[in-house]
C-alpha cells in the first residue's frame, strides 16, 4: 500500500523582496482528501498554490509529492507529476473553443488529437459544459470559464487539483452545484485543495481545513473544529 502522503509540505516560506507572503507552513494531504484553504485577503493562499504548482520557488522549506522532493520544480513538471491548478483570475485560451481548451489539458497524457478530443468531451460533460463545447471560450460567462478551467485541469489526469476561488461570484444554487462537483472529483480519487471565501460552499464538503493569516498557518482541523477556533475567529473579525 501507498503509505507516503500524497503531498507533504514542510516549513514552506515565500518572500517577495521583504514582503513575507508564506511563512513556515507545514501540512500533509492524503490521497483523495478534500482540503479547504481559507484566510483573509492577502493571507498568502494563492502564493501557496503558486509554490505547490511550481510557479514560485519557495524561499524556505520543502515540498514532497508522493515521497519525491519537488521543491522549486517547474510548472510543467509539476503538471506531469499530477498537480493541476486553476487560476483565481481566469486564464482560458481566448482564441479557442471550450472543447479545444480542455483538449490542450488532455494532450499532456495523450498527444493524439482525436483521443484528446474524446477525453475533453468527457471532462466537459463532467463539469456540465457539454452544451458550450463549440463556443469560443471568450464568449463564456466568468462562472462558465471557471468550470472550464476545472475541466481543463482534470483533463491532465491529476492526483491533486488546486482550485483557487472557483465559487466566487456564484449564486446559492451554483454554489451547491460547485460543491457537488468537488465531491465528484473526490469520488474519482483525486485530492483537492480548495481556496474559498464562500464558506457555505467549502465547509460541508471539506475533510479538513487549513487557515492562513499573514502568511502563516494558524489552524488545521475539521470544519467543525475550525469554526470554533478562537484564533480563526479573531483573524476573521480582525480583518
Amino acid at each position, binding site marked *: 500500500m501507498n503509505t507516503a502522503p500524497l503531498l507533504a509540505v514542510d516549513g514552506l516560506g515565500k518572500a517577495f523582496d521583504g514582503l513575507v507572503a508564506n511563512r513556515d507552513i507545514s501540512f500533509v494531504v492524503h490521497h483523495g482528501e478534500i482540503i479547504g484553504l481559507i484566510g483573509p485577503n492577502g493571507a498568502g493562499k494563492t502564493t501557496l498554490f503558486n509554490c505547490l504548482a511550481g510557479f514560485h520557488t519557495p524561499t524556505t522549506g520543502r515540498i514532497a509529492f508522493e515521497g519525491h522532493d519537488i521543491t522549486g520544480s517547474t510548472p510543467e513538471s509539476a503538471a*506531469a507529476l499530477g498537480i493541476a491548478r486553476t487560476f483565481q483570475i481566469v486564464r482560458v485560451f481566448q482564441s479557442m473553443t471550450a472543447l479545444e481548451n480542455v483538449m*490542450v489539458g488532455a494532450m499532456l497524457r495523450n498527444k493524439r*488529437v482525436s483521443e484528446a478530443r474524446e477525453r475533453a468531451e468527457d471532462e466537459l460533460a463532467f463539469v456540465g459544459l457539454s452544451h458550450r463545447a463549440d463556443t469560443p471560450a471568450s464568449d463564456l460567462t466568468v462562472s462558465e470559464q471557471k468550470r472550464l478551467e476545472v475541466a481543463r*485541469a482534470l483533463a491532465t489526469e491529476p492526483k491533486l487539483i488546486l482550485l483557487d476561488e472557483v465559487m466566487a461570484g456564484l449564486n446559492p444554487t451554483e454554489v451547491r452545484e460547485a460543491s457537488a462537483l468537488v465531491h465528484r472529483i473526490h469520488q474519482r480519487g483525486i485530492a483537492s485543495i480548495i481556496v474559498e471565501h464562500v464558506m457555505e460552499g467549502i465547509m460541508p464538503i471539506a475533510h479538513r481545513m487549513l487557515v492562513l493569516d499573514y502568511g502563516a498557518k494558524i489552524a488545521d482541523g475539521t470544519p467543525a473544529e475550525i469554526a470554533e477556533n478562537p484564533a480563526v475567529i479573531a483573524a476573521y473579525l480582525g480583518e
Partner: protein
Amino acid sequence: MTTGTNVSRKMAGTAALLALAAVLPLAVTEPSQQNFLILILMGAQMGVAWNIVGGYAGQVSLGHAVFYGIGAYTSTMLLLTLGLTPWIGALAGGLVAAAFALAMGWPCFRLKGHYFAMATIAVAEIMQILVTNSDALEGAVGLYLPMDQSGWGVLIFLSKLPYYYVILGLLVLTVLVSWAIERSHIGYYFRAIKDEPEAARALGVSLTRYKLIALTVSAFLTAMGGSFYAQKEMFIDPGSVFAGTISIKIALIAILGGVGRLTGPVLGAVILITIEEYSRTLFGSTGSGTDMIIYAAMIILVAVFSPSGVLGLLGDLRRHLPGAKPAEVETSAKEIRP
C-alpha cells in the same frame, strides 16, 4: 458534425486554387507578368513560414531576414565552391538556419513580447554586418551564380516558367507543413502559448521547447525561400537578403493578411506585392526607401483599421451584412479581467 463537411469544402477549395495556380502561366505568358506571379508566390511562401512562429505561436520575429539570408548564402556557397546542386543546397541552408534558430532562440525566448521582437532585429542586424565584413562570403560585393549553366540540376533557367513551378511547389510544401502543425497537438500548444502562456505551463506545456520548435521549423522554411531567391536573381549580397526591410516585409505579409490562419499570409502577399509593384512603376524606383514608406503605411493601416488583418476585416464585414445571423447575446468575460 459540421466540421467534416467544412474540411472537405476547404479541401475542394484548396484543390481548385492549386489547379488554377498550375494553369495560370498558360494564360499569363508575358515574362514580366510571370515574374510578378513569382514574386507573389515568394511573398506568400515567406509569409506562411513566418506565420508558424509569429502567427500560431505568437512570437513576433522582426529578424526573419537572418534565416532568408542564411538560406541564400548557404545554397549559393555550396554551389559555387563544391558544385552542389541547389536542391540539396536549399536543404542544407534550411538545416543551417534551423540550427541557428535553436542557438538564437535559446537566449531570445527568455525575453517576452516586444523584447523578443527587438532581440530578433538585433540578431539580424549583427548578421548583416558580419556577412558584409566577411571576405570568404565576398562581403558587400555579393555572390554571383554561374551564368554559363542552366537546367534543373543547377536550378537556373533562362525563362520564368520553371521558376514559377519551383516556387509554387515550395509554397505548397510550406503550406502542407503549416497545415500539419495546425492540426497536430503542436498547433494547439502554439495557440495555447500565444493566448495564456502561464495556463499552458500549468497544463504541462514547456514554453521553451514549443517556441523553439516554432522558430526552428519557420527558419527552415524561410531559408528555403532564401535559396530560391538566390536561384531566381542569380545574385545575392547582404543588402538584398539580410536587410531589415526583408524582415519587415516577411512579417508584414502575414500580419496584413491575418496572422494565425493558413490563408492569411497568402492573401497578404497578393495585396502587398501588388501594391509594391504598382508603386514601383508609378514612382519608377526600386530603392528600399519607397519600400519602407509603403510598409510603414501598411502597418499604420492594419493597426488602425484591422489588427486581425484583411481576413479579420472580411470576417467583421460578413457579420455586419444584412441577413447575417446576429451574434449571440452573452456576458463576455473579456472586460472583467484586470
